[in-house]
């Protein structure tokens, strides 16, 4: 009988096929879930990066408002304690420091004379110790 032969050909899905399909589906779902979690982690990470960027900018603006003779703008590394905490609403989220070096203006035609100060502000953060940094550099007048 033709129908009986056709039914014999429809043997269904084997256990191994079901198991393989389930494993592949689970891997795909877990990978998708992990990607969402990783995305959320990146958003949180960028939050600290934005805070650090604003902190570096604040330090640079604060230094620019000081007279050139201020202690904070003398050649060397600052602060004397090594780093200062960067706090937002009383919570420390990063550490900052800045370095002042003498800088030769290449446009004045003279070499090896010191015309400017180069200030580099570094803000570092990371879990269990600084692992990421934002660095700002700006030239200041010597006097």
């Amino acid at each position, binding site marked *: 009988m033709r129908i009986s032969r056709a039914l014999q050909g429809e043997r269904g899905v084997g256990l191994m096929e079901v198991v393989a399909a389930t494993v592949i589906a689970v891997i795909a779902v877990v990978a998708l879930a992990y990607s969402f*979690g990783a995305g*959320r982690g990146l958003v949180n990470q960028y939050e600290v990066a934005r805070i650090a960027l604003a902190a570096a900018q604040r330090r640079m603006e604060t230094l620019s408002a000081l007279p050139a003779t201020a202690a904070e703008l003398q050649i060397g590394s600052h602060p004397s304690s090594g780093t200062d905490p960067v706090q937002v609403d009383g919570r420390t989220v990063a550490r900052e420091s800045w370095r002042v070096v003498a800088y030769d203006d290449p446009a004045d035609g003279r070499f090896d004379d010191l015309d400017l100060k180069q200030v580099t502000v570094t803000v570092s953060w990371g879990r269990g110790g600084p692992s990421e940094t934002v660095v700002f550099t700006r030239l200041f007048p010597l006097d």
Partner: protein
Amino acid sequence: MDRHAARGLTLIEVTIVMVLSTLVVMGMISFYISSQCTWMASSTQALAQRDATLLIETISARVRQATLAEPFDSPDALHQGLILRDEHMTPTWSFWWNEADTLVYQGADLNDGRPVVASRVTRFQFDTLTRLVEIRLVELRAGDGQLVRMSSAAALYNRGAQTP
């Protein structure tokens, strides 16, 4: 094929299959909803962070052009405003917190402003020094309720040495 072997499914078998498939579908729906929530939380958080940066950059750009900055309570010390003046002490630009919609507005006139960013601001505080405006705290509420806090500073570059 034996016709007796093609006996179909019993009620018990159908019930078991339905229970199992319901569990699988419920698991998939709960995973979808959970993923959707994570995605929405991340997106709203990222938007609030971007708005906080934009707000600080907008204020900093205006402060750098000003000669004098005057903070004022709008209406209290946690929600302030900032009036920026030029070298003739004429008010040129202002930022203020609006109690009605909890947005920060900007404009040349306190009666005619537009929101700087679309995110709601829960705290907006300043400190001023002689040549510096410290944006002490900008706190925005993301769509999922989380708070984004940021602070910065901007120098009054239009303030000459002779300005008192």
